[in-house]
């Protein structure tokens, strides 16, 4: 089967500091890939490169058989087929929840307001947020804000979802509600790439876990293998620290 997303030899440096050295990654349709690794290992940057929010220096990012990193590709068009959710939610604070969600469909896809709102309410209902439709984001809990951010990304009906440490900014008791939304998306068959520090979650939701270290994917395997029997010393060291911290 052709890969949904295929990343080849991706290199990215910021002001001479190399963040992604040489990354290769394949994601097939309906697959869930988790990216783990310490902060600064390049997880976040990789996701932003996939969404073309950060231009890569060299390499290929092939989505549905098209190299989207090639010149001449319209990034706005590419972004419509994938959604990204950020660590800090990044909701638009001056807009109600419903307007946060309908902005993309209305302005990008030209869907009339009524129709966009109807769809948005449907999504909000599905994620148990309908009563927040007319609230401003600042008045919601972190977990609610992050769920709204997920709904906003889903409103464009993407075929690929990218999650960038979406629970790292949440109070511990709010983490589960967000993770459950992602579990629900897996059940629905969404293709996802998830950067996370929640190892327990990665273990049960991922089909494939990638350990990033210093800008390369050092090791990738099914979760039971990567967590149960890591091959690389760096992976072993990283996981040991997680275990020592009581997080796995």
């Amino acid at each position, binding site marked *: 089967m052709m890969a949904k997303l295929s990343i080849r030899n991706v290199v990215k440096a910021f002001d001479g500091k190399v963040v992604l050295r040489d990354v290769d990654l394949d994601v097939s349709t309906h697959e869930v890939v988790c990216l783990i690794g310490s902060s600064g290992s390049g997880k976040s940057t990789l996701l932003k490169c996939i969404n073309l929010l950060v231009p890569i220096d060299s390499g290929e990012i092939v989505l549905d058989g098209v190299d989207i990193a090639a010149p001449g590709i319209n*990034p*706005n068009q590419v972004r419509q087929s994938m959604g990204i959710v*950020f660590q800090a939610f990044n909701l638009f*604070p001056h807009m109600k929840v419903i307007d946060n969600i309908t902005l993309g469909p209305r302005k*990008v896809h030209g869907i009339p307001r009524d129709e966009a709102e109807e769809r948005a309410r449907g999504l909000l209902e599905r994620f148990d947020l309908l009563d927040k439709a007319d609230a401003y984001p600042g008045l919601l809990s972190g977990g609610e804000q992050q769920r709204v951010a997920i709904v906003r990304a889903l409103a464009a009906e993407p075929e690929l979802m990218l999650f960038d440490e979406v629970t790292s900014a949440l109070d511990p008791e709010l983490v589960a509600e967000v993770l459950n939304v992602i579990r629900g998306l897996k059940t629905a068959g969404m293709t996802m790439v998830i950067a996370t520090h929640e190892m327990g979650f990665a273990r049960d939701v991922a089909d494939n876990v990638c350990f990033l270290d210093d800008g390369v994917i050092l090791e990738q395997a099914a979760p039971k293998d990567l967590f149960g029997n890591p091959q690389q010393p760096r992976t072993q060291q990283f996981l040991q620290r997680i275990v020592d911290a009581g997080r796995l």
Partner: protein
Amino acid sequence: MNSNSLEEVERRGPQALWPRRSPHSREEGARGALIAAASTVGVLGLMLWVVLASEAWPKVQRQFFSWFHFKESFPKVASGFWLDVKMFMVAEVLILGIALGIAMIRALRGPAFLPLRIIAVTYIDLIRGLPILLLILLMGFGIPSLQLPGVTNSPLFWGVTALVLSYSAYTAEVYRAGIESVHESQRMAARSIGLTQGQALRHVIVPQAIRNVIPALLNGFVSLQKDVALVFVLGVREGLREADIYNARTFNYTSYIAAAVLFLLVSVPVARFTDWYTDRDRRRKQAMSS
């Protein structure tokens, strides 16, 4: 600790262990207000007495504060001042729009927009580098001297145009500060849902930016509200010009005081409103982040 204070701890809880910060806060507040009032009256009274008791005062009063000349000059000055108000309102609307356009052009990224950005930056640099009075003279006298067909020679028109050009450059910088105060992650989130740069600016960045710079924009209002009087150098019969004409005729300066009173009547409330708004905005932000 003696038995008294132990009793107090029982009565008031652990707070009794610390000295009461203000045991009679209401009475103390009243006393404070009284002191403030007394000292204000005292200081102002002293200043007033020094001025009124001075030998020069009768002369000053005659030249600057003559009730007769005030009444005589006021109607003309007031009708001229109404023109100031109208100039201000027209100019301010234009400035707010043009400056926003310039600021948005400056905020566009990518090599394709470089020529536009260069034009915007050049405009801002040139205009801000010139004294506003020079610009008014240059345009108000210069352009009519060309006698271009189909182009108005109205000094009022060119004076206001010069003000708009000048203030737009400054106001564009105010907007730019606002645009830069909106966190980069907002731009990223806007782009991530497929919005173009322009859409992201218009729907996401600029609405937040404007909120952040409203106090600075209001400051600009106060400033422009006075600077419209500069077009008097072109002979436009606005408030200051009328006062000047009266003074030239009578050699009495009370007409200037009449103009001053009118300008203050407008600008002081705007200044107070700016402070009130800034204060309220800060309190709101604190409430949101707590």
